[in-house]
Each structure stands twice: as C-alpha cells, then as structure tokens.
C-alpha cells in the first residue's frame, strides 16, 4: 500500500514539474528551483511532514523534500538556540543529499571520461 501512495504522490509531483516545463515553457532549472521553494513553503505551514508520513519515498525522493528539510533543520536549531539557529541549523537535516552529490560527482569524474 505504501508503494502505491509513493507511486501516486511522487508521480503527481513529477507531473506538476512536467506541466511547469511544458505548459508554462520554463527551463528545468527554473522548475527544480520552483519545486524546492514550494517544498520549503509547505514545510513552513507544517504541511510537508504529514505528506512524508503518508507517502514515504513519494515525498522524500522528489526535490521538494530538499526545501522541506532545509526549513526543518533551520526550525529545529532555532528552537534550541534562537534566531541564530536559523542560519546555523539549515544544513543539519539535508546534508546527505548535497554531500552524496559532491562525493559521487567527484568519484564519477575520477572514473568516467566525458562522452560525445
């Protein structure tokens, strides 16, 4: 059942991305940035966490979760150490995506040669 919800919710988020690209004629870069901001706003209103509980990877795998976890980390740290925590806590939760991208990109650049 979780798989079905992951499929449907994740598919819908990708569908929204495709509509932004095709109907509103935006670049992929704009689309991804838009979705990240949308995820951040949703978490600001406390709406993203219920979606993660409900759809699992359907909500954590799309790029919207990046915005969500940035806000999440900032708010968590702000709770502990006040306003400064907004800046210092931002990457607390989301660091894995960025560090994985950097590490694997470096490994990829070491192993593979550019094609075409």
């Amino acid at each position: 059942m979780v798989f079905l919800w992951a499929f449907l919710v994740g598919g819908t988020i990708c569908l929204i991305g495709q509509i932004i690209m095709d109907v509103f004629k935006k670049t992929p870069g704009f689309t991804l940035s838009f979705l990240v901001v949308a995820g951040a706003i949703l978490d600001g209103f406390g709406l993203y966490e219920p979606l993660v509980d409900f759809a699992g990877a359907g909500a954590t795998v799309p790029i919207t979760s990046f915005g969500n976890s940035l806000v999440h980390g900032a708010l968590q740290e702000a709770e502990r150490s006040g306003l400064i925590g907004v800046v210092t806590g931002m990457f607390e939760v989301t660091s894995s995506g960025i560090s994985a991208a950097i590490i694997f990109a470096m490994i990829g650049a070491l192993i593979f040669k550019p094609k075409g």
Partner: protein
Amino acid sequence: MLNTTKSDYKQLASKYETKRPIWENCLRAFVVGGLVCAFGQLISFFYMYFFDFTEETVGDPTVATIIFITMILTGFGVYDKIAQFSGAGTAVPVSGFGNAVISAAIEHRSEGFVQGVGANMFKLAGSVILFGVFSAFVIALIKTILIQLGVI
C-alpha cells in the same frame, strides 16, 4: 489549391504537434516519476530492515543511494536516454539534482580537477541550492519570529 492544402496541413500538423506531446510527456513524467519514488520506497524498506534507520531518518540514505545509482547511469551514458524519454519524471526526483552535479563534473574533467570539476560542479544545480537555502532562510526566520512573539 496546393497552397491551401499545404497551409491546412501545416495548421493541422502544428495543432497536433503542440498538443500531443504535452499529454504524452505528462503521462510519461507521472509514470516514470512514480516508479522512481516507488523504487525509492523499496530502498527505504531495505535500510529500515537491515540497518538502524527509522521512518523519519530513512530519507537520507535513500536519497544518497539514488544519487549513487544516478552516478553509475550517468557515467555509462544511460541516464541521458532515460531522461529524454521521461522528462520531469527523472528530473524532479533527486536523480535530476544528482545528474546535474555529476554530469557537470564529468563533462568539465578535461579542464582539470580544480578549474574544471571543482569550479563547474554546481553550474546547473547551484540555482536549486541558492533558492532552496534562501527561501528556507526567509521562511524559518519569519516562523521563528512569529513563534517567539507568541503569535503561533
């Protein structure tokens, strides 16, 4: 006569040309994107059963694993073909973010590791990080101030 049929045909063709791909692309994006997320759910279950991850923390290793798979697919040149078919279906999941970083790193390797790979790695994905971090900053700042003032 010939001209009118030609322009008629052009009109007809352009009508179908602009209309059809949107529906087809949307369907592809939905199905492929959904499958990527369902596959992510499978990875999540793997990490929950065989390692000490809870439902809340399992998102991190799942994202990292998908980026790793993206690296392999990008390196062998398979990712481009999948992305061409699926459009937003693979661009919107973290695989798209990973591919933007990894393909830029591989592509600029010939310029050296400092000036090429290091300088160009976030050429495409940089805007995602910029807008994500800045919007998160503004939102978290507003919410924290509202909480401290006792509004929420």
